[in-house]
């Protein structure tokens, strides 16, 4: 296996310029996120671009491949602690899972399971399974979910960070649901079926995918934090994700039958409380938020204490 030092950047800002303002997680590439999230210079990549482990399928469709197949995996340090980390690049094929992309994440999480002590960070940025290699992608999702649960059963925290362009959709949403903790920003979205998929299958009366406000109050970061699907909400800044990730890898990520039962109960309660409601606004009102309409426009520093007061606590189960 080729291991090489990270020395990358998606744009000219490959390293940290002095006096630079907060870097947006949403705007950053997968490699920039890794560079700024982890302790400086600590990332060592497995199957790095020079190894050219690319998709065997895309050329059949006359589509260009990418040298890392849209995911960078490796090890590094976070707040001085060893971590295993994977970052999806949402701008390559929508961050979608293909055969190689999926196998890289499966291998990483299985390594964490076998080490049984090194936390895993998954920087989700994905539309789900890559349609050109759908069978391999679907199998990869199942393998990754199994590996995540096995790693957690061995006591390893598996933390998902969500705030990229592609959101966290399809099989990515399923894997996220298996994680021990999720950190999300306002720009982040979690769902299985995306807005366009729902509209295509059920009609525009069911879900208007062009209504961005509707998309965000159904799947967006603030809503996911308020209903407890994500435990931690952060501002769209790499430093904020870093601070939250350091906290999450220090928590107990273990899963057993009791945790699973508590998680099932949490989800049952959610359906009972909110299952008949038509809109996110109704749910926020039911949570007791005084002026639900003000939530979408709220800056992070106002929203975070509000969510702590009224939101469902995401740490109850998982």
């Amino acid at each position: 296996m080729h291991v090489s030092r990270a020395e990358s950047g998606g744009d000219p800002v490959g390293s940290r310029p002095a006096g630079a303002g907060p870097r947006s997680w949403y705007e950053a590439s997968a490699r920039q996120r890794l560079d700024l999230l982890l302790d400086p210079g600590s990332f060592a990549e497995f199957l790095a671009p020079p190894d050219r482990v690319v998709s065997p399928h895309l050329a059949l469709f006359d589509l260009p491949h990418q040298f890392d197949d849209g995911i960078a995996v490796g090890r590094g340090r976070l707040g001085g602690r060893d971590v295993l980390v994977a970052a999806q690049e949402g701008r390559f094929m929508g961050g979608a899972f293909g055969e190689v992309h999926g196998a890289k994440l499966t291998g990483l999480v299985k390594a964490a399971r076998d080490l049984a002590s090194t936390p895993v960070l998954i920087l989700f940025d994905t539309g789900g399974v890559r349609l050109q290699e759908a069978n391999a992608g679907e199998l990869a999702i199942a393998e990754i979910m199994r590996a995540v649960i096995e790693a957690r059963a061995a006591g390893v925290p598996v933390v998902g960070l969500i705030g990229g362009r592609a959101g966290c959709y399809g099989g990515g949403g399923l894997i996220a649901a298996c994680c021990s903790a999720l950190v999300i920003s306002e720009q982040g979205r979690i769902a299985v079926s995306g807005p366009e998929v729902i509209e295509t299958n059920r009609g525009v009366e069911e879900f208007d995918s062009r209504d961005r406000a509707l998309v965000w109050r159904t799947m967006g970061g603030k809503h996911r934090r308020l209903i407890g699907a994500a435990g931690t909400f952060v501002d769209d800044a790499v430093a904020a994700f870093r601070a939250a990730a350091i906290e999450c890898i220090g928590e107990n990520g273990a899963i057993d039958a009791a945790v699973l039962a508590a998680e099932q109960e949490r989800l049952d309660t959610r359906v009972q409380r909110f299952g008949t409601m038509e809109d996110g606004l109704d749910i926020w009102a039911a949570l007791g938020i005084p002026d639900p309409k003000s939530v979408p426009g709220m800056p992070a520093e106002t929203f975070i204490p509000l969510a702590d007061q009224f939101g469902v606590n995401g740490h109850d189960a998982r």
Partner: protein
Amino acid sequence: METLTIQLQAPQPARGRRAMAIVGVVGSGDLEVLAERVLAAEECHLEISTAIAGFGPVWQAVARDFVERRSPGGVRFSINDGGARPDIVAIRLAQAARLIEEDQPCT
């Protein structure tokens, strides 16, 4: 897919000590450039893989201009193109050359 190989002579070797650098993403209108210090000091090669066939002369012109300006001798540039315009190609090549010329050594 069309693959192009452009082999040029560089008057100066690339500065710095990094073994490799990568910039860009294979997205619409963008490209990824992998720079590797694997050639003789006076050589510079570009290996291009693109779904947009028929633009060999444009790639040749951008490559010649880039090597003339930056002279990244000893470096092979491997490109996966997502349909980038020549100006984006020139910017990504310059970024890759600048990154591999940083002083931080590769271990």
